[in-house]
């Protein structure tokens, strides 16, 4: 499929995003699919800044800024009011990984369990970038951040947020990245089509300063993340029907991905750690392929 980028723009130029910021590009591409009958809820995250200080506003949809841990529930509250007004407006919760994996997980779980009719987008730059690169539970194992310095890099694997969302049996969840805009666009459309319940998009979004990555390499880094299976592209319907939407080519190695970014120096410098990381990636990929190939994946699984 060849992606014809819709011409309509809902993001003005002059945002406060850093050079090469994929969080900004993620918003731009997602809104091209959703359109202007939408409202975004932004908790504390880079996007609190990117949109601009008052009276500047960079989006052509309303944005309601809210506290760090409340994106999902505030979006649900807005949706409730709009439904009462007879409006079909799409309400988007737009949060970073900290606001999703960590502090916002409770409200996200609550909204998912209640199957709130919202689209929740986590733009994941794999650390607290807005506060200056501190680890979150989305930070991959072995990564440098300012709170996991080179001598003590992140000791634990990245939290499996997609598994958590799948466990809530929400109608639609998918991973995506702007390095594959056609795949991203199709998934936003799929999320729009699954309206009536909770939709979750996990969008890997490169952060050049936080990843110690040249700004012009952001797209390349995200492309390699997909190709080396660090960040597989897949979708999950009803929490059990897994579909891999892009099959990586085997020509991109883990090292190709890691060596592009200074934050992975601890892994590059430690062969044992690198093997541990590689094993984790292989195991998760194998599990994912198994889910994809399950013959019974469309069969109703028992609800506990």
């Amino acid at each position, binding site marked *: 499929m060849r992606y014809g980028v819709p011409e309509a723009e809902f993001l003005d130029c002059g945002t406060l995003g850093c050079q090469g910021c994929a969080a900004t590009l993620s918003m731009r591409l997602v809104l091209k699919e959703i359109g202007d009958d939408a409202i975004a809820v932004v908790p504390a995250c880079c996007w609190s800044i990117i949109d601009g200080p008052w009276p500047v506003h960079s989006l052509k949809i309303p*944005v309601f800024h809210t506290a760090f841990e409340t994106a999902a529930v505030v979006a649900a509250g807005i949706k409730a009011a709009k439904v009462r007004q007879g409006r079909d407006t799409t309400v988007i919760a737009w949060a970073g990984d900290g606001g999703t994996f960590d502090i916002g997980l409770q409200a996200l*779980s609550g909204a998912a369990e209640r199957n709130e009719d919202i689209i929740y987008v986590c733009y994941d730059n794999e650390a607290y970038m807005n506060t200056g690169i501190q680890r979150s539970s989305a930070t991959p194992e072995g990564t440098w951040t300012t709170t996991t310095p080179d001598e003590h890099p992140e000791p634990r694997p990245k939290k499996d947020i997609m598994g958590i969302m799948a466990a809530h049996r929400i109608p639609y969840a998918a991973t995506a990245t702007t390095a594959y805009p056609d795949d991203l666009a199709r998934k936003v459309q799929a999320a729009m089509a699954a309206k009536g319940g909770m939709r979750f998009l996990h969008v890997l979004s490169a952060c050049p300063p936080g990843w110690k990555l040249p700004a012009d390499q952001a797209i390349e880094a995200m492309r390699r993340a997909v190709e080396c299976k660090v960040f597989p592209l897949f979708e999950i319907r009803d929490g059990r029907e897994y579909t891999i939407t892009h099959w990586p080519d085997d020509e991109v190695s883990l090292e190709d991905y890691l060596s592009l970014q200074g934050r992975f120096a601890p892994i590059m410098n430690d062969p044992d750690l690198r093997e541990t990381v590689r094993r984790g990636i292989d195991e998760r990929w194998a599990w994912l392929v198994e889910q994809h190939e399950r013959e019974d994946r469309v069969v109703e699984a028992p609800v506990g």
Partner: protein
Amino acid sequence: MPERLLLTGNHAAAYGAMLSRAEVISAYPITPQTMIVELLSELTASGKLNATFMTVESEHSAMAACIGAAAAGSRTYTATSGQGLALMHEMLHWAVGARLPIVLTNVSRAMAPGWSIWSDQTDILSQRDIGWITLFAESVQEAQDFIIWAYRVAEQVHLPAMVGMDAFILSHTAEPLIVHDQAAVDAYLPRFEPLYDLDPADPRAYGGLVNRDHYFELRYKIFEAMDRARHLVVEAGEEFGEVLGRRYTPVEQYLLDDAEYVIVSAGALTSNVRQAVKDLRERGVKVGLLRLVMFRPFPIAEMRSLLSGRRKVAVLDRNMSPGHSGVFAEEIRATLAGIPDAPPIYGYVVGLGGRDVRVETVVEVFEDLVARDEPETALYVGVKGLPIGPLRVPEGVIR
């Protein structure tokens, strides 16, 4: 036609939200508030109340859901208590800064640990400096009516409002309640007309980054709105009388005109103070009651005019600010400081964690007030083994 029912304070609060036609209700259960949201979900499920009921996973989310719905144009209501109100704290600030006229009922409950579900107003007074209009109900009727009164003012000044109600003493006590005629309430409280409702046709950003050039002015507008609320509460209380037959005021006076001694209290505790004052008057003592109905905005002018020139004032605080005194006493002292004929303020800390404050307890406080020379920072009433008095180092362990 108005209906006369026998209901608890909690159920009266649910009726208050229903009569106010709350559109989005979001709440989380907590003793002793739970009956409010139980009844509201029944009323919603049966269609008696046309509202959306959101059963969220925490009080923090309950307030956040109200914030979202209010920002998008709905009239919103929630109810909580103690720990729940404390958990909401961050979002209580958000409701003020976002200028959303949410109304909540807080059934005041003591803070843990140790776990206590009993009456204590420290929970609500810990939210003092946020910018919520704050009212204290004394009766089942007020538990209902103050919600309607609160919406009326809150929506005019774009600030949220909370109605305090004491655990069990009011929340679980049944009294006759006049449920107002819906058409009359509708006449008093028109539909919520928000200034903004997150309309995609008018795409604005709400609550974003403000730098040092603007933040202060945004806060100044909140101070200004709170000051307008001071007058609007009086006006709306008068009108409540005209339209719904019960007039409400920011303070209530009882046998105050010629009183040399005044006892100040707030909430359900006041009923016993009223009785004690009546009993003492029969003994020929010139004592009166000043009830604090509204805590924010603080009724500064009323306090000054009604308390100056009195011989002594006893303030009953079913709350405590450790390291200082009871909060009401602290506020009243600050309000009276420097005015001519300011009376000495004796702050009595009573009934923490739901310990009974009986009519006799109030009489004991009064007798202490008359006998005592120096108004101490705080005087503790009813601590086991200790007579009324300031902090002392006990000889043994207090059991």
